[in-house]
Each structure stands twice: as structure tokens, then as C-alpha cells.
């Protein structure tokens, strides 16, 4: 079966779903964060594939902006996670829920 654009679509959706599954399933803040990175990468892959199919640079420019924003988010997110760790010595979200009661 020759590779066509539908293959990329399915591949990227599959990767995206893995990311979503992980984000829902895991309780460790850093792992959830990695799952979100997977989701963003699935999107990037699909955009680049579209850009190739349609011969359109706009989609690739979008990818760069996603990368920039993802980098900014990583910085902020990891700062928040480290701050949290300093207080409770854990990055488990379940512990947070338990602390509240």
C-alpha cells in the first residue's frame, strides 16, 4: 500500500490519542506534561504533512509558532512544577487532592 496523506492523518491522530490517554491516565505532573508535548508534536507532524501535500508554507510557519509557544509553556510549566515540589516534595496530583481535605 503506497503511503498517502491519509496515512499521515491517521498516524498523527494515533499519536495525539496516545498523548490524550496519558494525560488522562497518569497522575505525575511531569508525565502529564510530556503527554501534552506528544500531542503538540502530533499536531506539528500533521501540519508539516499538509504543508507538503498542499505545497503551502503557511502551515510550516504555523509549526514554528507552535514550537515557540511550546517552549514558553515548558519554561513556565516546569517553573510551576518545581515551585510545587519545593512545598510538598511531590509532583503527584493525587497528593494535592488529598491535602485539600
Amino acid at each position, binding site marked *: 500500500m503506497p503511503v498517502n496523506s491519509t496515512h499521515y*492523518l491517521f498516524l498523527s491522530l494515533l499519536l495525539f490519542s496516545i498523548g490524550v490517554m496519558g494525560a488522562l491516565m497518569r497522575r505525575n505532573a511531569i508525565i502529564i506534561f510530556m503527554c501534552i508535548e*506528544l500531542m503538540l508534536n502530533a499536531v506539528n507532524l500533521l501540519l508539516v504533512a499538509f504543508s507538503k501535500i498542499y*505545497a503551502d*508554507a503557511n502551515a510550516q510557519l504555523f509549526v514554528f509558532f507552535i514550537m515557540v509557544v511550546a517552549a514558553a509553556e515548558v519554561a513556565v510549566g516546569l517553573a510551576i512544577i518545581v515551585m510545587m515540589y519545593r512545598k510538598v516534595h511531590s509532583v503527584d496530583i493525587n497528593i494535592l487532592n488529598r491535602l485539600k481535605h
Partner: protein
Amino acid sequence: MDARTIIFYLLAATVIGGGLMAVTSRKIFRSAVFLLFSLIGIAGFYFFLDQEFIAAVQVVVYVGGIVVLILFSIFLTHGSGEDMKKPALGRAVFSALAAAIGCVLTMYLISEHTFQGSGKPALEPSAGNIGAQMLSVTEYGFILPFEVVSMLLLAAMIGCIVIAIKVKVPEQKVMPKIKEETEPVELEVVEELKTEEV
């Protein structure tokens, strides 16, 4: 099966396998390494699609930047490499089902879609074009988002500093301690200097 198809499936296996292992592994450090494989696989796809520039950026930003940052924070927050707890079965089943249903539904929806070749004239996606458009004010120019995103980075930078900076313990308690530690050192230095002069 020609070579292109085989390469496609090999890369797909790397990306999906790496992703799956990253999501399910119980050692956080391994998760990060599997994520690394997955991201490199995606960079491989960009090469496969003849988009060398974006592939290079992918390696630099994700593999060189984001994964390293994640590893740093793992080292900061997980002193020992012990296993994480298994996710509760109910939650695991629920999330797997939710993701699977969403995925299958979307795939079913779009499986009828057929792609046609491009209709309207578009901009050829070459590295030169991308670079020129990023700063251009003419048609397809992306100067405004380019400028605005710099503000986003500024906001993120201020944010990180505000969040990550340590709150000081009330000053009276800290000050004497510092003095005790620093004063003797200074004296020693001064003495050394004196002896050298002599």
C-alpha cells in the same frame, strides 16, 4: 512494498512505540528517554517529507531544548529513581477508552475524506521562503505574529522569574547567620593579602 513504504512504517513504529512507552512506563526517567525517541522519530518524518529545515529545528528545539529541560526538572524533583505507583485500574480503563473512542470516531469521520491537489496558488514551503515570510509585511507576511510572540516570551520570562524565585525567610533571622559565615572568610583573605605584601 517499496523502500519508501518500509521507511514510513519503521518511522511510524518508532514514533508510536516511543510515545506508548513514554506514556505507560513506570520509571519517569525512562519515560523521558522514550519521549526523546518519539521526538527524534518525528524529526525523521520531517526529513522523509523533504523538510530538512524544520527537521533541524525539531531536533534543536525539542530534543535539544525541551527534553533536556524536562530531564532537568526530573532530576530536581525525583531524587531517587524509584518506580511510580501504578495508575488505578478504573482510571486507566476510562482514559484508554475515552482516547480510543475519540480516536476511532475522528478516524471514522475523516476516513471518507479524499485529498485533492492544491487549487489556489500557494507559497512553496522552502526554508528561504519561510525565513522571508516570517519578517515580511507583504502578502503571506507573518511579521505581526512574529512580533506578538516576542511579547509572549517576555510574559513567560517574567512569569518564570516571579514563580521560581524563592520567598525569603524573614530577614532578621537570616542576616546574622550570613555574617557569621562570611566575616571569618574575609579576614582570612585580608591576612593572606597582607602576608603577600610583606
